[in-house]
């Protein structure tokens, strides 16, 4: 009898035994989960993502947890929506319905900032290859430069599904991508000040006048989808879903669908995606040298994105005879609308009468299109080179 009681008690404390015997990595990851909670709750850093990711991370790292075993709740969520890239695409439908492309249509030349703002992707790809990552891993790490969580998850998970990168790396990449997106207000301003002169920062740009016609707004998502489909068909699911969301919004004939995309679909997908990504962060697989390198390279990617945008802005400033404020180039990344607001704030800091917001919004939506286009082109190139 006493033996049975002792063995029953032993079973209850098996988790504690595991923690003390070889649970070091799990304890570290539980601490990481707590840091994510602190960032989300106390600092307001990307709470929509960091809270569920942190909780998924907590669940998977508790001793003897079975949430990521076959039929475990997080494994089921992972297979249902990450393994087949469904959740990132559903989030893109929501992002599309939240995005207003009218500043870009009023000033289309600013779309080019959206291309310059992707420089970090390709430079980081070179760096990652030089550091010994495989081609597929390097492309996944470089995608952090897209400043776009769903794009990173879409690209990296495609390779994880082909067993070309470890599944745990998808979690590291997603957390790095979302963390750096949240840190854009910390990363960008020093670079803006470092690369521009006071005279350049003070340049006033007149606000675009007039209203973009509804017909142009409706035609835009169709045109972008068709061009992406022709140029880079591998990225069509990404661009197609953003443009579908935007199309539903601008037509104005399906307000319920647009509202569902913006709210229910985006919210549910975000919750499930966050939990499932957190589930990939099991300590023994996550705590590797590669994870640290992913975070380092992610920072490099976003820094170079900003540099690329500002440098194009400086060239434009020279070519236009000082009519373009180079700060607007910093908004050519996908962190929408945060990057645009930063440019507005930075412009006003140096010239109180400067209103760069509409120009920055145009560059910022250009950055959204540019990041997805860059990812689409990368995937199409990989297909063309026979790598996928």
């Amino acid at each position, binding site marked *: 009898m006493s033996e049975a009681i002792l063995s029953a008690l032993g079973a209850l404390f098996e988790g504690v035994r595991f923690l003390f015997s070889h649970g070091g990595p799990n304890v570290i990851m539980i601490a990481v989960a707590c840091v994510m909670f602190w960032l989300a709750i106390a600092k307001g850093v990307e709470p929509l993502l960091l809270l569920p990711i942190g909780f998924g991370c907590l669940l998977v790292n508790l001793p003897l947890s079975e949430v990521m075993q076959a039929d475990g709740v997080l494994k089921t969520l992972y297979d249902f929506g990450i393994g087949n890239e469904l959740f990132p695409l559903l989030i893109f439908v929501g992002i599309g319905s939240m995005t207003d492309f009218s500043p*870009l*249509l*009023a000033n*289309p*030349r600013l*779309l*080019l900032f*959206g*291309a*310059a703002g*992707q*420089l970090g*992707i*390709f*430079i980081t*790809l*070179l760096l990652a*290859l*030089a550091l010994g990552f495989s*081609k597929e891993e*390097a*492309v996944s790490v470089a995608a952090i430069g897209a400043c776009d969580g769903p794009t990173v998850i879409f690209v990296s998970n495609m390779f994880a599904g082909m067993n070309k990168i470890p599944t745990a790396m998808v979690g590291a990449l997603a957390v790095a991508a979302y963390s750096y997106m949240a840190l854009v207000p910390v990363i960008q301003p020093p670079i803006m000040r470092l690369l521009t002169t006071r005279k350049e920062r003070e340049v006033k740009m007149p606000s*675009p*006048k*007039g*209203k*973009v*016609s509804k*017909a*142009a707004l409706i*035609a*835009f998502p169709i*045109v*972008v989808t068709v*061009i992406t489909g022709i*140029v*880079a068909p591998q990225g069509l699911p990404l661009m197609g879903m953003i443009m579908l969301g935007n199309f539903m919004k601008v037509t104005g004939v399906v307000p319920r669908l647009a509202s569902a995309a913006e709210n229910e679909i985006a919210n549910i997908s975000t919750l499930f995606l966050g939990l499932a990504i957190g589930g990939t962060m099991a300590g023994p697989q996550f705590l590797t040298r590669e994870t640290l390198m992913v975070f380092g390279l992610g920072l490099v990617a976003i820094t170079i994105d900003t540099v690329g945008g500002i440098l194009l802005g400086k060239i434009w400033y020279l070519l236009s005879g000082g009519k373009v404020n180079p700060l607007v180039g910093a908004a050519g990344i996908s962190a929408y609308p945060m990057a645009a607001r930063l440019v507005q704030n930075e412009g006003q800091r140096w010239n109180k009468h400067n209103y760069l917001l509409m120009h920055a919004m145009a560059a910022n939506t*250009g950055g959204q*299109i*540019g990041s997805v*286009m*860059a990812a689409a*082109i*990368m995937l199409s*190139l990989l297909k063309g*080179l026979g790598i996928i």
Partner: protein
Amino acid sequence: MNNTVFGLTMLVVGMGGTLATLFLLTIVIRVLCAFFPVRPDDKEEKK
């Protein structure tokens, strides 16, 4: 294909392709806006 060639190919064709595609898009948007021009603001219309 070794990693250096692969990386440089991606840099040149990838970045170049992104720039070229977005440049093409700006032209398309301009054409689009020529067909459906920007309307004056409501306030300006009232004036």
